[in-house]
């Protein structure tokens, strides 16, 4: 049901923005749901695994500082096909966050603004399903910029690695597992999950290396997903949308 609804909403958006003056790459994002075959096997689908570094967690006052993304097709990670941009922030960098991401105010101020980066990013995500760890936060910040720049949200289907992880960890197989909302939410952080899957972790946060770590965890989750009867993109979105 929700699929139909999303598609319907998307159709309306397409109509609304048809004659607006927006970049073709951005407009193309409105057609993405037509490009994706939801019955496609999770091993054949195209993904873009993303991570962002933020100036803080308040979506009103904070903003995106960097975006990292890695391309995948099925279980293959394209090592050379990645996206990494540092963004000139619209707000001041707080010392506490500088410690986490290691990007200095000077470094950031010399980078292009998010207005220039968004079209590139949308183009990189073209035709792909977005995957990320606790992706809701990243999407919230991306959508804030999308709304401001273009008036609509990013249209790519989105799946959350943490949701996926919790399903795999849950022994019970079947529909119940998917509706149980009492699952303890973020107990494990990205690095802990990475260690559990034997994915090498380098200390320090960087949007690209975190995206690459996320991609490697996702890669290792795929076989476990098909064991639990999750075979198509539709199945995967059903259980792990944020």
């Amino acid at each position, binding site marked *: 049901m929700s699929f139909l609804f999303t598609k319907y909403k998307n159709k309306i958006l397409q109509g609304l923005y048809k004659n607006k003056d927006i970049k073709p790459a951005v407009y193309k994002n409105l057609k993405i749901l037509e490009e994706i075959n939801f019955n496609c096997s999770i091993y054949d689908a195209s993904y873009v695994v993303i991570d962002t570094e933020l100036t803080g967690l308040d979506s009103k006052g904070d903003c995106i500082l960097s975006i990292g993304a*890695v391309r995948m097709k099925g*279980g*293959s*990670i*394209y*090592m*050379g*096909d*990645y996206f*990494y941009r540092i963004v000139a922030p619209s707000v001041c960098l707080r010392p506490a966050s500088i410690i986490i991401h290691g990007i200095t105010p000077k470094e950031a101020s010399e980078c292009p603004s998010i207005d220039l980066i968004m079209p590139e990013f949308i183009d990189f995500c073209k035709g792909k399903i977005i995957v990320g760890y606790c992706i809701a936060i990243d999407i919230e910040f991306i959508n804030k910029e999308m709304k401001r720049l273009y008036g609509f949200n990013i249209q790519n289907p989105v799946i959350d690695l943490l949701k996926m992880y919790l399903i795999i960890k849950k022994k019970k197989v079947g529909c119940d597992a998917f509706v149980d909302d009492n699952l303890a939410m973020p107990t494990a952080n990205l690095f802990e999950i990475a260690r559990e899957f*034997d994915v090498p972790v380098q200390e320090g946060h*960087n949007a*690209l*290396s975190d995206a*690459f770590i996320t991609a*490697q965890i996702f*890669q*290792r989750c*795929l*076989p476990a997903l098909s064991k639990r009867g999750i075979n198509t993109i539709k199945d995967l979105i059903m259980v792990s949308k944020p």
Partner: protein
Amino acid sequence: MITEDVVKFLKTVIPFQFLKEDELIAISEKTLLEFYPQNTILLKQEGPPSDNLKIIKKGSVKIYAVSNTGEEIITDYRGEGELIGYLSLFSDNKSRVSVMTLEDTLCYIISKTEMRAIIDRHPNIKDFFHQSFLKKYLDKTLEEMHSKTLNKVSGDMLLFTTPVGMLATKGVISVFQDTSIKEAAEIMTRHEISSVVIIDSNAVPVGIVTDRDLRKKVIAKGLDTRNSICSIMSVSLIKSDSKEYCFEALLKMIRYNIHHLLIVEDGKIKGIITNHDLMMLQGSSPVTVAKDIEIQQTVDGVAQISNKLNSIMDILIKEGAKASNITKIMSEINDRILKKILTLAEKKFGPPPTSYCWIVFGSEGRKEQTFKTDQDNAIICADPETLSEDEETKRYFSVFTKYVRDSLVMCGFPVCPGNYMASNPKWRQPISVWKSYFSSWINVPKTEAILASVILFDFRAIHGDFTLAEELKRHLLTSLKGKDMFLLLMAKMTVNVKPPLSFFKTFVVEKDGMHKNKFNIKFKFLSPLINVVRLFALEKRIEETSTLERIERLMESHDTIRQMGDELKHAFEFIMMMKIVHQFNQLTKGLQPDNYIDPNDLTNLEKKTLKESCQVISRVQESIENRYLLGRLSG
């Protein structure tokens, strides 16, 4: 950023490590990373060929085929840094084997199209896929080993790559053979030289005259100085061809205890080189050590020099010497120490009552000594004429050999745990007893007999009456004729210890004890190789004792070695070098050298070369099994 890790990894993978950085960066950008859970089938026998090259980043796979009878035959294990699917790069035939992951495995993937483009651009990558690994990569592995071991990387390897001709720039003063003694002496005075070379009318050197000759043969004897210089020259002129490498010249200088060596080119004098020239080349010289040993008058003195010999090893390894060169020089120096000790013993106890020959065996006998190895020695005496002579001989050598044994211990050579030493009465016997020892081992080949012959048949004379050793050698070689049962049992023992074929995961390491998770390079790798070569040498009745010399000779006469000789030589050099470098590193860390190597300390290239070396040894072992144990001698 993430491709940097790919580049870093590819630098450890053969053959990619032979590519330049920018090429690796280009490759890394086209690479995929894939994950396969345990028990994933990556390729299926009779299935389509692989459409890419997989490089194992982490994990391991087994390669196997199922025979007509349904039996699964594992042909190989591959681990980190090894490749899957490279045959498919060159052919579109169905896959001949199946490949399955043994654990969760990560691979970097390079597409067939991309790989073919790389191969087209780089002939050396093509070589890797097409040619014998050992031959091609031995040098690279050794180079890597040298640079890994040493902080100071010496790229020039002067001693072993410079022909002596290059150094022999000093003009040599020579006189024709019809010159008079007086004229020659005048020439020597004019040039302020202490020796002059005598040449014939074709400029071929025929002898040398030194100040000493003038003193001893002319002045002291009142010889007429109008006589031809030929009458007083020494004809045993030691020379090297200008094409020989400096280390060979060095070896001659050590062996003959000389400081000047004449260099000839096409038979004519080219120049002269001195110990000093070689020292300039490398900083210090083993020749000096040989000389130092020579002048010692006490065991203490010899011991002092002997215990400092590791510095020579240091030079040799840093010079980039091949293992065979290192062992040659070290054996030569050890021989000198032993000879000196024996001379000192003779001085101490007076001349021996009978003629004798001091022999060494084991690695000493094969001239394959590296660091201080256990004493392996014995005495062959002349057969005594009378009972009293026999008793006196026994008495003399009983004291003599204990003195030699203890002196050698002082010089750093530990006693032989198996008591294969001349101080053991069993191993100091008249020639006739030795002959009967050898005959009985060959005629009644019990296990102990074979064990003893493996050790003793590699004997070599060091000091004393060499004819005794030669006689025993002749006896040994004649006795072996037609003794198939002895060779059969030796063959059985030879193939008993098989070198490990697949290292990864199943790398044969010690399961417990202080050498847990390490492998014994001597027992598992070096001895099996030495043993197969010894078997063939005895089979063909070849008198050489060193493994490389045996292989060289066998290549003329032995079918298996004719085909595999070169590969065996490479394998021997490599394994020996690995042992030397390992022990050298232990010594520099102040540890007691042993033969236990941790496979984790090896680079992928070293692992690969070791694996290839093992395959060569086991191919030879297979040929032995086919011939001896299944063929004509079955039963």
